[in-house]
């Protein structure tokens, strides 16, 4: 690509923009879906992660603005996420409490609270997260901007295979799976099922909070009420789509991110007809893949048996 003139990229700008979009847009999807994957592996669904994501975005931006450090913002976002996760985990540990209902309540609570507390943060601008210019070799601004990779994405990239490994090769991972696959068996082995689920929900919330901080501190990179367009909820769906496997969560997030970038990318090369249609690409893609990959018998095999939707 050395020395290629910007204007000569032409139609190649589309896949390049899709690649860049995949990397940028996928990061919140990736963190939320990895978090939800951990929570669901324990046999519980946290639908409140959309609220956690928005709270993470707000608090991350606020702390970054107040302290001048974007990384402190990320830390704060993960702490707030862990707190919301703990609230979900605690409530669901009470007898006769349904995790889906609690999740929906916490989603609305998180969004509402973030909007309320975040009012004064719409105007000021906070320090953003740094990125690594992997496109340094190229003169082309498209290439440079596409390969402007945020550190959080790299963290997520490493986290996915690490999680998959941990689920199969560590005590904590195995205990998590046992609790999600057979609560009775876990109790018979002497594990505290509620404790494990609480921890899994806390960790899931913390990761979702980090995903939120990416939204306000990197891309799009400011705080406003329209920041999340349901990424938190879609990430929960991604986990099902990825059949509860962290590495497949990564692929699914990339696919989703890429599909989301399709509309803007086509517009940038002059394809303007059907702009809104292309913006709906991720949703159409989800439906399509869900239909193609679903099976009456096989899909349920990967699903943690203790999930309240499968019981």
């Amino acid at each position, binding site marked *: 690509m050395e020395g290629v003139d910007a204007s000569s990229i032409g139609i190649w700008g589309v896949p390049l923009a899709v690649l860049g979009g995949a990397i940028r847009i996928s990061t919140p999807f990736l963190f939320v879906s990895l978090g939800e994957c951990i929570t669901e592996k324990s046999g519980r669904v946290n639908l409140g992660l959309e609220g956690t994501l928005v709270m993470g975005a707000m608090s991350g931006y606020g702390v970054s603005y107040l302290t001048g450090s974007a990384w402190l913002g990320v830390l704060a976002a993960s702490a707030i996420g862990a707190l919301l996760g703990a609230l979900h985990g605690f409530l669901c540990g009470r007898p006769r409490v349904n995790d889906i209902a609690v999740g929906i309540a916490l989603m609305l609570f998180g969004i509402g609270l973030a909007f309320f507390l975040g009012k004064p943060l719409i105007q000021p601008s906070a320090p953003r997260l740094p990125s690594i210019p992997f496109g340094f070799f190229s003169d082309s601004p498209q290439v440079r901007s596409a390969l402007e990779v945020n550190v959080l994405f790299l963290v997520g990239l490493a986290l996915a295979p690490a999680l998959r490994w941990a689920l199969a090769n560590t*005590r904590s991972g195995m205990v998590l799976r046992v609790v999600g696959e057979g609560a009775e068996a876990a109790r018979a082995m002497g594990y505290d099922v509620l404790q494990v689920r609480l921890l899994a929900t806390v960790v899931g919330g913390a990761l979702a909070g980090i995903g939120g901080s990416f939204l306000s501190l990197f891309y799009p990179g400011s705080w406003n009420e329209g920041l999340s367009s349901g990424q938190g909820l879609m990430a929960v769906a991604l986990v099902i789509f990825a059949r509860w496997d962290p590495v497949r969560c990564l692929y699914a997030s990339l696919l989703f991110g890429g599909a989301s970038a399709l509309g803007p990318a086509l517009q940038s090369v002059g394809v303007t007809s059907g702009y809104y249609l292309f913006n709906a690409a991720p949703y159409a893609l989800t439906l399509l893949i869900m239909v193609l990959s679903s099976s009456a018998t096989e899909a349920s095999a990967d699903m943690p048996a203790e999930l309240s939707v499968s019981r």
Partner: protein
Amino acid sequence: MTAAAEVVRLESTLDTSHVRARQPPLSLEAVGVSKRFGGLAALDSVDFKLTPGSFHALLGENGAGKSTLVKCIMGFYQADEGKLLVGGQPITVKSPKEAQRHGIGMVYQHFTLVENMSVAENLVLSRADVPRIIDWKKEKRELEEFMDEMPFRISPERLVRKLAAGEKQKLEILKQLYVGSRIVILDEPTSVLTPQEADEVLGMLREMAYQGRVSVAMITHKFREVVAYSDEVTVLRRGKLAGTGKTRDLTPEAMAEMMVGAEVPRASLERRELEGAAKFFELDKLSANDDLGLKVLEEVSLSVAAGEIVGIAGVSGNGQDELVEVLAGQRPTSSGSVRVDGKDYTPTRAQMRQRRVRLLPEAPLKNACVGNMSVAENIGFRCYDEPPNTSLGWLVRGSALRSRARAAIQEYGIKAPGPDAPIAGLSGGNVQRAVLARELTGEVNVLIAANPCFGLDFAAVSEIRTRIMAARNSGSAVLLVSSDLEEIFALSDRILVMSEGRIVYESKASEANMADIGRHMGGAHH
């Protein structure tokens, strides 16, 4: 006697070369153990002694206290009185984990394996000291070595979900040895197995006991298994020790008497023969699919004459549940037909009433009752919309239903606080009695019963069987589906065996042979 008697005692073939430098099995002793729940004495000063390296059967009816005793030993409950000794040393056990530390392990009636994990993962996880990071290479090598020492092996790679029921039960037992248990307690380990699988599992256990690996205590109510496999037996009745001794010194009759006591008479199931009974209830090539759309009933054809009980035996999960669901109208058929007295029958409310088809489904509280509705309403389900229970053709008269229920409570001896009590508050036997009262009132042409006595105490069992027999003697065609062979033999005139959704065996009850039936249940027709 059955095949059980033919099982050769292994004492003569005891091979001590297998006994390596391992911990010897332990003795276990419970002395004067008592446990009360509220006003009820579940255990009343019971003594139990398990000799090292022996196979001990713990026998008793439902509610006799077997499970309570075992739960006190395992630390699920704390005994109110009495003490436990392991290897002669007094111990206190506060949790199953503590029991494991003393070398006591338990195999439960239902599997405690994690279905979606491999055999290796299940075994490693069951250890008290799972390492933080698991070195699978090393673990697999050690598992192979462990399996090589065992009388039975299951490949560590296999997914538990894909194992057969018998293999799962063997894995449960292997798991106990793997974690180093020297006393293994089993709670009705063969209830989900075919007789052949049961023999393999129990044979393996006994071999392990004779090899000096473990002492085995098994809860059961199957005499066949007691006689064929145990060295010693302890019988409990109503929370008290009813007797104990060497199995070879006791006859099944003697054990049965210890179990039920001399004072309870066995229900006399008098059979009256009906002359010239025609085919009355017929299934013609009935097929149906399961919830996943897979074929679960394949062209099932059978007929039941008036005044006849046809028993369907089989290992659970071979289509019996679905057959009952089809006949109850809970599952659509894909082909075939059902006839009552030559007329086509589809299980709608109108036709059930017209053809007088009645049902005793399994788990009656779930399948035949609405738990939160009253006893009177539940008893009235078949007739609440008919006069005299309605006024003006649509208004249900609660008083009429209540008086009906009072009569039923009297006649069937249902122990209920009153007709207005919610039925879910009744004990299992009384729920079944209430359902019987509903289903057997009036004229009955066809009665379909599925495991009607499952989980009930002795008195309820004998009464319910007597009622079913009475229905037969008064001319009903009875189709009995049961996973309890003893029940099938006690009631049936003809016995069918169902396997993989097909009827694979048929015999008159008087000519039927347990070994043949067991073979067909296990799939010998292939």
